[in-house]
């Protein structure tokens, strides 16, 4: 349904041979009272020109204008590039055409045509108010869409966080599982051994009672000795104590492993520290490596070349997130076995972290898109395509930069630079 049709005012048009006087008289009549201009059409009812009240004024204002030009044909004076718009064209197309072609000051109406034939005249102002209405409607719609988008983007970022968190928790759970397994079993062993020892101690006590008692017979002593022998149950006590000692060492080692992981989790999340602080990136790397250990240990050998770098002012938990993301990506890029080389260094303006893997590499056509939100080459369900875009955003908010070089079949290297002095923009 054409929006423009509603604007068409059914104003009679003129022929090219009509005189200026005839047009001028028409403008004075009631029919043309609201018209700024009228259309001139040929024998096929196709507009060939238009003339405005303003143009007629100019003619008549000249000395003897009416006498000299009044009987001339309107075709001699009309504007030949007709301001004509097809009734079926869109509001915005019409507005664009009119604004590009109308004369200033605004002194004309425009012609509406249908299939090339004259339909009626329409006022530019009507077009303007319709445009304004449409714009306010679409801006409301845009606003709604924007709100929806930003809430779903927040949800996506949240779900990426949850996915990363889930992966991390699974990894750490498995890391804790192993020491927990042997610690638990060791304690059970010690308890069983303790039960045995209790019998043996009881038997010893009985033996000493027997020995000390004045009216003990040889038979009593023999019985006590036999009871002690039974309690020992073939146990090689010396060996047991050696074994138990090893179990205790293992148990302490295991408990230490678990507490190291828990401390690591705390360091990684930095829950008990200031949000923005002077942070050593080397510490961040160690912290993220600990969390990623389970993902990394069967895939890559980690080589660290950490320089003596100054602390930088940053949001540590976010930098940890970035590093963990880069490390897990590296592990995923490595098919069977490979290396993960982590380097840090600094110059007078920035500190740098390089994360390099010997994985499958990124094809050139993908390299420019890896920081785009939702770009992923992982199967559906395995990657949200947000990891690196979040990384990019975090580093950007820190006033830093991320560079990447990659060669298919050889590996990929990410270099992050964080400026030493920076105005930290409000971190999201």
């Amino acid at each position, binding site marked *: 349904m054409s929006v423009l049709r509603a604007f068409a005012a059914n104003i009679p048009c003129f022929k090219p041979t009509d005189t200026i006087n005839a047009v001028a008289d028409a403008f004075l009549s009631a029919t043309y009272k609201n018209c700024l201009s009228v259309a001139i059409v040929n024998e096929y009812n196709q507009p060939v020109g238009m003339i405005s009240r303003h143009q007629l004024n100019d003619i008549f204002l000249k000395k003897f204008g009416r006498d000299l030009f009044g009987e001339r044909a309107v075709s001699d004076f009309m504007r030949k590039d007709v301001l004509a718009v097809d009734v079926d064209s869109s509001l915005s197309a019409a507005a664009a055409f009119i604004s590009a072609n109308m004369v200033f000051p605004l002194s004309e109406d425009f012609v509406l045509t249908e299939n090339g034939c004259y339909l009626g005249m329409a006022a530019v102002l009507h077009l303007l108010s319709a445009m304004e209405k449409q714009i306010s409607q679409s801006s409301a719609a845009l606003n709604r869409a924007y709100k929806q988008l930003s809430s779903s983007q927040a949800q996506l970022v949240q779900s990426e966080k949850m996915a990363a968190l889930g992966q991390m928790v*699974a990894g750490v759970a*498995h890391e804790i*599982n*192993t*020491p*927990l*397994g*042997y610690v*638990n*079993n*060791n304690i*059970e*062993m010690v308890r069983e051994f303790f039960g045995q020892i209790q019998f043996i101690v009881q038997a010893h006590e009985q033996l000493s009672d027997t020995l000390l008692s004045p009216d003990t017979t040889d038979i009593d002593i023999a019985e006590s000795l036999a009871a002690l*022998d039974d309690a020992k149950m*073939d146990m090689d006590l010396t060996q047991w104590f050696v*074994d138990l000692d*090893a*179990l205790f060492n*293992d148990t302490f*080692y*295991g408990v230490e492993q678990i507490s190291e992981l828990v401390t690591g989790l705390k360091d990684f999340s930095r829950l008990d520290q200031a949000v923005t602080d002077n942070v050593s990136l080397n510490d961040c790397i160690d912290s993220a490596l600990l969390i990623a250990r389970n993902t990394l*240990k*069967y895939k890559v050998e980690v080589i660290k070349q950490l320089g003596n770098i100054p602390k930088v002012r940053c949001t540590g938990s976010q930098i940890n997130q970035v590093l963990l993301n880069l490390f897990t990506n590296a592990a995923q890029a490595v098919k069977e076995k490979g290396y993960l080389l982590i380097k840090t260094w600094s110059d007078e303006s920035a500190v740098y972290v390089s994360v390099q893997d010997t994985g499958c590499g990124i094809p050139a056509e993908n390299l420019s898109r890896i920081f785009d939100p939702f770009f992923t080459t992982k199967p559906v369900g395995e990657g949200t395509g947000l990891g690196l875009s979040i990384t990019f955003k975090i580093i950007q908010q820190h006033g830093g930069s991320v560079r990447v070089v990659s060669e298919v079949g050889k590996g990929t290297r990410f270099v992050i630079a964080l400026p030493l002095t920076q105005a930290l923009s409000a971190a999201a």
Partner: protein
Amino acid sequence: MNHPIKVKPRILLVDDEERILRTLTMLLKMQYQVFSTTDGNEALKILKKEKIHVLISDQRMPLMVGTELLRQAKNLSPQTMRILLTGYADVDAALDSVNEGEIFRYINKPWGPKELRDTVADAAGIAMKLESVSVPSFPAPAPARGVTCLVLDEDVLVYEAVKEILGETHQVLWRTTMASALAVMASQTVAVLVTELQVGDGDTSVMLKTLKQEYPDVLTIINTSFKDTVRVSQLINQAQVFRYLPKPLRRGLLAKSLESTLMRYKQLQDVPVLKEATKVEVSNDVQEKAMSTKIMDYLSRLRAKGFGGSSIAQAV
């Protein structure tokens, strides 16, 4: 001190964490002669040299993963009872442990010392019993012929695929509900059950577990789109499923699985003592137990009546 010299069963432990090996050795060394190694290749050497009764392996190890070790162990020393002890919930590893490793038990880390000891005792007992009989070399010379294969699946394609593979030499039946499948089981000897985990009248897991107790001869192939480690491990421990195939159905894989299942069936019929090795653990889930009792009642009623007459759905 005059104790009789007992021959202790031999256990082989494989885990990349030495501390696990040490503690498990301590747990088991009173009753067993314990060998241990962190390296799968070393484990295979030990398997060749010593007669090992029970092999307990971790899954994630740097040099050789557990399922690979179990697969090779199965071929190298088929009499050795195989147990996977893992803390890593990787569903593909669980499937491999069924299909490639044909394991006796799937145990999660951290393990309960008592439960582990009981399981090892079970496995060692069976292995000692099997040791005393002579078993024809593995694999069995020829697959069984002229047996009955029951397909329990709402998807006709599965039936058609099985029919196409076995139809010429074996009887292939098709049912879409557990009740009607049980009626078949009660009335005739079924060698192979090819089943989905989800059918018209519910989840088949409990039925499979119960069936293994009632009809230990039946070998089960599960063909399903359900893939989760907990479920697979329960079906290993409590139903001793022989194959677990993921849907969508792959015809080649199904054909290969059916062939090895029939071979296995023949072997179990020829040497019945081998059935010992498929002993199942009974679930201690209260609901499952109640359901299992219902299924058993239903089966015995079916058997008493001949079969088929009663209202079927009420049992399950």
